[in-house]
C-alpha cells in the first residue's frame, strides 16, 4: 500500500492510472480490500480538506471524512474510472462539509479561538504558530463559498477552472470568491495584532 501511495504521489501516470482503475473495478465488484486501498490513498487529503473547510474542528472533520467515503462507496456504481477521480472526490467532500457547516451554523457559531486544534504544524516554531493561528482565524471569518474557493485554490493547489468544476459554479464566480477571500485575509492579518510571544 505504501508503494502504491508513493506511486500515486510521484510515479508514472500510466502505472498510477492503471493501478487505480484496477482498484476501482475491484471495489465496484464488492471487493472491500480494494475499497480500503482507495480509502488509504485519499483519506489524508480528504481529512485535511475537511479540517480546513470546517475551521479545524477535528470531530466534525472526522465525521465529514467518514460521510465522504461512505458516499463514495454508495456511488461506486456510477463512477467512471476514466474520469478525474480526485475532482469527483473533492466535490463530495465540499458538499458534505457545506452541509455540516450549515447544520452547525444553525446549532452554534464556532469562536475564532475555538477554530481548532485538529491540525498539527509541520514546524513547532512559535512565530509561525502564531501566524498559523491568525490565518486560520481569518479563514474562519470568510463566508463558506469564499473559504471553499480559497482552500481549493491556494491550499489544495487546484486551478480556478478545476475549483469551479468541484464547486459546481462558473470560473468567473470562483475567481470572484478567491479575489474577495484574499483581500479579506490580507485585511484581517493587518488588523489583528499578534499576541506577545
Amino acid at each position: 500500500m505504501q508503494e502504491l501511495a508513493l506511486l500515486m504521489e510521484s510515479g508514472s501516470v500510466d502505472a498510477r492510472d492503471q493501478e487505480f482503475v484496477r482498484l476501482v473495478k475491484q471495489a465496484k465488484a464488492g471487493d472491500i480490500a480494494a475499497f480500503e486501498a482507495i480509502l488509504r490513498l485519499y483519506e489524508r487529503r480528504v481529512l485535511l480538506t475537511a479540517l480546513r473547510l470546517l475551521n479545524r474542528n477535528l470531530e466534525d472533520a472526522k465525521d465529514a471524512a467518514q460521510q465522504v467515503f461512505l458516499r463514495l462507496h454508495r456511488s461506486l456504481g456510477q463512477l467512471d474510472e476514466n474520469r478525474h477521480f480526485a475532482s469527483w472526490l473533492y466535490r463530495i467532500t465540499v458538499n458534505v462539509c457545506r452541509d455540516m457547516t450549515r447544520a452547525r451554523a444553525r446549532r452554534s457559531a464556532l469562536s475564532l479561538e475555538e477554530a481548532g486544534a485538529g491540525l498539527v504544524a509541520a514546524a513547532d516554531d512559535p512565530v509561525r504558530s502564531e501566524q498559523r493561528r491568525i490565518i486560520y482565524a481569518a479563514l474562519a471569518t470568510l463566508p463558506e463559498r469564499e473559504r471553499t474557493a480559497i482552500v481549493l485554490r491556494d491550499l489544495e493547489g487546484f486551478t480556478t477552472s478545476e475549483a469551479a468544476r468541484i464547486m459546481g459554479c462558473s470560473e468567473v464566480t470562483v475567481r470572484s470568491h478567491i479575489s474577495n477571500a484574499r483581500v479579506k485575509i490580507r485585511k484581517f492579518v493587518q488588523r489583528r495584532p499578534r499576541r506577545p510571544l
Partner: protein
Amino acid sequence: MTCAKFEPLIALYVESDLAEREQRLVEAHLKTCAVCREFAADICDSQTALKELRMDFVEESALHEVRAEVLNQLSIPRKTVAWSKYAIAAMLFVGLWAGWLWRTRPAATPDLQPVAALIAPPPLAMAPPPQRPRTRVVRHRRPPAPTFQSEPLVVKMITDDPQVVIYWLVSQNGG
C-alpha cells in the same frame, strides 16, 4: 480605472489567476501606482502565510479512526443484507407451504362426516357436469279405462278343443 477597482484584480494577479490581457493591464498600473504596489506586496505576504498551511498534517490516529469507522459501517449493512435474504427466503417458503396446505385441505370437517364421505374423492366443484342433449318429456295420458257400471265384464276362454269356448261373466261390482 481607479485603484479600488484594481484591488480585486491585484488579488488574482499575485497568483497568476488573471487572463493575459488583464495581467498586462495590472502590470501597467503597478508601474505607475505606489499604493497598489504596496497593496500587492501585502497580498503576497498574506498569501505566503496562507500557503504555510499546506505543510500541516493530520495525526495518524485520526486517519485510523476514520478508516476503522468507515470499514465498520460498510461491514454492518452486508450482515444485515445476508440476514434479510435468509429471512425473506424462509418467509417465502412458509407462505408457499401454507398455501399448498390450504389448497389440499379436505372439503368439510371430518368429525361430522360419515366414513364414506372421508374416502370419497373431493368434489369437482370447478368442472361443470357435461350437458346432456335436451329432450322434451311428453307424458301421454292414458285414456280412461272404460267403466261398466251396469254391464258385466265378459271373459272368453279358449280351450284346446276348438269346439269348446268358455265365456265367463264377471260383475264389476266385485262379483
